């Protein structure tokens, strides 16, 4: 439950359609509780939220059918950390939930034939490069000054952060690497300890960029 120190965090995984199952398996392995989110009721008392991969058109229609757009926005604007992966990145962009100041280019790397795995450097992740799985993946075509780009592939941004919203174009739930999910869990822990995102850190990073 939100705020109770020591208890496992409860993370909602949007489960209208898409890669929710693999995210839930990963969260279980990391000791976090998860809940499938299919209606507004499922958003109560969440400590974090994952918008998984899947088909962005299908997911948009589902969000509209369930009236989930405003509840999801309210949750993110209340400071609950959010991780969007692949189609989840698209959901966070200006043309969809409009939570991050960026525009995603859908299927930017091509069809399934061009899907691939590769290592990349992700800012904020220590150690060896991150192994990333890109499936019919988008990239970030445009972004505003509040968005911090964390990684790129072929010169196109594929990971970005804005406050406690983290978006990646690849699928951390499909590789053996836990570190992207740990970023979400760290943001949740930091929020529990300190209460909310750190504006000084964000300002400092923007200045640095």
């Amino acid at each position, binding site marked *: 439950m939100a705020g109770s120190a020591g208890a496992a965090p409860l993370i909602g995984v949007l489960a209208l359609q898409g890669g929710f199952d693999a995210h839930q398996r990963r969260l279980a392995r990391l000791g976090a509780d998860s809940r499938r989110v299919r209606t507004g009721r499922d958003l109560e008392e969440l400590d974090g939220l994952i918008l998984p991969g899947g088909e962005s058109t299908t997911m948009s229609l589902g969000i509209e059918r369930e009236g989930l757009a405003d509840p999801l926005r309210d949750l993110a604007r209340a400071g609950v950390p959010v991780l969007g992966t692949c189609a989840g990145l698209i959901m966070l962009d200006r043309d969809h939930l409009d939570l991050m100041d960026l525009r995603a280019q859908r299927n930017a790397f091509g069809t399934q034939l061009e899907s691939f795995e590769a290592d*990349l450097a992700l800012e904020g992740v220590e150690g060896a490069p991150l192994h990333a799985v890109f499936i019919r993946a988008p990239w970030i075509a445009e972004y505003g000054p509040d968005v911090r780009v964390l990684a790129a592939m072929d010169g196109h941004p594929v990971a970005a952060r804005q406050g406690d919203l983290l978006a990646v174009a690849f699928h951390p739930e499909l590789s053996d690497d836990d570190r992207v999910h740990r970023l979400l869990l760290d943001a949740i822990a930091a929020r529990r300890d300190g209460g909310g995102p750190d504006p000084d850190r964000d300002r400092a990073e923007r200045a640095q960029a």
Partner: protein
Amino acid sequence: MYSEQWTVSSIREQATPRVKTGLAEMLKGGVIMDVVSAEQASLAEHAGAAAVMALERVPADIRRDGGVARMSDPAMIRQIQAAVSIPVMAKARIGHFAEAQVLQALKVDYIDESEVLTPADEENHIDKWGFQLPFVCGATSLPEALRRIGEGAAMIRSKGEAGTGDIVEAVRHLRSIRGEIRRLATLGEDEVFSAAKELRSPLELVQAVAREGKLPVPLFCAGGIATPADASLVMQLGAEAVFVGSGIFKSEDPERRARAIVEATTHFDDPERVAAASDGLGTPMASLEAAKLQGEELLAQRGW
């Protein structure tokens, strides 16, 4: 805005098992709809399909028309690819690796080596490891599923009996696959060898299923889904997504039925939502009772 720090030289691996099953992971909880034209594909996408299966005739028409059913005309597949942004799948005949090569050249997203088409090889299925694209194959039982996975399939769909609108075979196949998985999971490590022999399936795959309690690739359901409640039923029986063939575009109001089946697949375990989705959908597809079909009329018997 381009920054030097992003330039990381990196080796790209394509067509790995993870990339192939990964797309199936992304289709979970969704509905894959058979379409025969760009208009139908577009309607399916706007109704919430997670992917479309491009084919020349839906199974109900293949049954009615008879004759040899083949891969679709590439022109039609291209029109469908141009019409939608969701993944486009297409069917090749069992064992017809040249049709599969053509589909790969067309850059479809998934190839269905399908019993709905007339088999091209009575001995061998396609060696799917030799392809860059992922394959889905039908199965009626766990051994059949494991043989297909052994040949490189990245997704299994229970076969059901396509083009009938009768869910009974899909239920039989799903229950059989899931039941065999549960049985394997209860075996001791020393008992798995004999089980693999009995199942005529690759030992490594049988060991993996016994250990994990599930198939190493996603398990979807096809063949006979005609209503939202059918979708709910097979999802509750353990399917992770559904294929709907004739059930949508052979019904009275395809758009409403498509939306309703999408909604019921998402909310499969909420009877009130399935009830609401089922309300006033009009007439479903004309159906055939699978139990009355005989011999060669049974498509599920194709493949082994």
